[in-house]
């Protein structure tokens, strides 16, 4: 029995279960799923669909964090991706044409991939601290998105494009399939190939990995490319949802939500071992919490307060001081030691 307790997915699963339970007590119809015209509807379905952009971004963030890095530019990349896609569609003679939409999406995701590669270049090749390197794109990216849309919120009326966020495939929303596909793809690549283990090695002990011949540079670079690409797809889903490219709101604050999801899922911010399943749980927790807050009638603009409290609580509990205090109950006497001098200075 104790082994379940110690499993690292225990706490996130428990937290999610608690949230769902609270919701279903407060809102009896929470767990209800209805079928209409062959499609499933319900609060749970909404959560799954609405979590798609965050899911994609958080998956990419998990890989970047595993390499001891961070990607603060994902929101901005989402904005750029949406802007590119919508500009292509808007500028084409037939916005409703499936081919046009596919080209637009392809192009937008390609641009996002390039932006991810740019981040990877700064971090892996130039050795710039990830926080600072991605801060630049965080700053400039929205400007680029605004330029692309000419300063306006470009709207389109395109059935194939809107399908992405609101359409259904079989019985579930299409966006859920996108999420699931991303999760499956990443999980397979990370665990079926050696990429997962090598990434963890790079994050846990970069020097030992280097001496063992691991291609650390490529692995780190790759993580940022994946993060950028996933952010690009997330931007498409977001734009499809509002049928517009809003450079200012797209992905606003999504960085912190993604980091929070990763941390809730059990991956350490210090890098190393990571858990895709944990991140998935973390995203669902956040999305359920958001739905709860909205249901309670809190205006969505005010919801950041709740998340701030959650973040603060989580980091406080994970802090060495609290951990030390808890272990003091069972600690054997040992000579105290001054903290190791910091090798690298983290500017954030």
């Amino acid at each position, binding site marked *: 029995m104790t082994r379940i307790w110690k499993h690292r997915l225990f706490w996130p699963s428990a937290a999610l279960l608690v949230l769902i339970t609270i919701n279903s007590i407060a809102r009896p119809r929470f767990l209800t799923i209805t079928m209409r015209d062959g499609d499933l509807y319900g609060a749970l379905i909404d959560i799954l669909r609405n979590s798609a952009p965050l899911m994609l971004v958080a998956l990419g963030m998990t890989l970047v964090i595993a390499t001891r890095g*961070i990607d603060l530019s994902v929101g901005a990349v989402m904005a750029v991706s949406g802007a590119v896609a919508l500009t292509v569609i808007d500028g084409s003679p037939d916005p409703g044409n499936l081919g046009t939409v596919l080209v637009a999406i392809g192009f937008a995701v390609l641009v996002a991939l390039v932006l991810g590669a740019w981040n990877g270049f700064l971090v892996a090749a*130039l*050795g*710039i*601290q990830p*926080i*600072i*390197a991605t*801060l*630049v*794109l*965080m*700053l*400039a*990216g*929205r*400007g*680029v*998105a*605004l*330029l692309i849309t*000419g*300063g306006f919120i470009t709207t389109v009326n395109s059935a194939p494009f809107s399908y992405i966020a609101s359409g259904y495939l079989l019985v579930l929303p299409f966006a859920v399939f996108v999420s699931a596909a991303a999760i499956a793809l990443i999980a397979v690549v990370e665990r079926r190939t050696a990429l997962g283990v090598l990434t963890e090695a790079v994050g846990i002990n970069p020097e030992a990995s280097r001496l063992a011949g691991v291609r650390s540079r490529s692995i780190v670079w790759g993580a940022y490319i994946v993060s950028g690409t996933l952010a690009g797809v997330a931007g498409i889903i977001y734009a499809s949802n509002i049928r517009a490219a809003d*450079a*200012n709101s797209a992905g*606003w*604050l999504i*960085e*912190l939500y993604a*980091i929070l999801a990763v941390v809730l899922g059990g991956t350490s*911010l210090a890098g190393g071992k990571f858990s895709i399943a944990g991140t998935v749980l973390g995203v669902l927790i956040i999305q359920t919490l958001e739905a709860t807050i909205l249901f309670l009638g809190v*205006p969505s*603009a*005010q*919801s*950041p*307060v*709740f*998340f*701030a*409290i959650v*973040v*603060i609580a989580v*980091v*406080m509990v994970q*802090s*060495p*001081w*609290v951990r030390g205090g808890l272990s003091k109950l069972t600690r054997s006497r040992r000579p105290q030691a001054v*903290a190791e*001098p*910091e090798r690298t*200075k*983290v*500017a*954030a």
Partner: protein
Amino acid sequence: MSATMTQARSMPADRPTSRVQTFMSRHGAMTPTFAAVVILVLLLVGAEAFLRGDFITARTLSALLLDNAYLLVLAVGLTFVILTGGIDLSVGSVMAFTGILGAQLVASGVPVGIAIPAMLAGGSAVGLLIGVLVQRFDVQPFIASLAGLFLARGLAFVVSLASIRVEQPEILWLQQNRIRLGEWYVTPTGILALAVVAGAAVVLHLTQFGRTVYAIGGNEQSARLMGLSVARTKVSVYVISGFCGGLAGLLLTAYSGAGYPRNGIGTELDAIAAVVIGGTLLTGGRGYVLGSLIGVLVFGTIKTIISFMGAEQSWMQIIVGALLLLFIVVQRAIVARSVRRR
């Protein structure tokens, strides 16, 4: 110490050095700030030459300070934090929060004499929270301040979902009163901002606290071993940044005549860019508030140039981002070179 030795040792340390070498060894840290001054001058001259012949006028330059007073105050507070090697991503949201808070208070009849201190206290409280998280709970500054950003932004909307006009003459006076000296003019907001710069400079260079800030940025472990009150100082710099956020909220409210919860989205990045362009290293330990002043002026000049050119404001973010990147890459190259030389 007794003077039992016979002569001062002649050693590599006092190989006859040229005046240039002595100057560089004393003031080498000012090079990035000096570069910022050069950039500012180039911008002004360039605009004058290629844009409009009447760019450099008393009017334009006065407006430069007037329009960016709030950013200047933010940048000064941020300088303290960045000097210790930390970062504060919450300043824009704190500015919005305190701005709307103040507007709400005076709209409800609270006297200005209480509303303004309340704004400053609110900003400082957020700063204190961040500082405690960083120092006591060992949270990385960007996560702690990102949580502060969330908190302040959410609280701003809690105070009010819509903007609130401010009509109190005392507040509006700060912005509308113009003190003229010939062609030049300055407002109380501008004077306030410059006073903050001056005060910060005095603190950083002439007080134990200020020197501790630099020491922490240079080598926190050493500062601790040298007996400096590192813990207290690290928390204080975030309180200062929060306080400046509150002050900036006041300035911005006076400037726009209203509190608006959507204010300052992205302003923290502008402030960070201004600080970095002004020569403060993000790794901490080096930089000057005067440099941040220059950085804000560079920022404001670029904004003015863009508006004069009739180009879209979105260019602003791109250019600032590009400049920031340039400075960071150069900073990194300099650091890498000095490490290799050892």
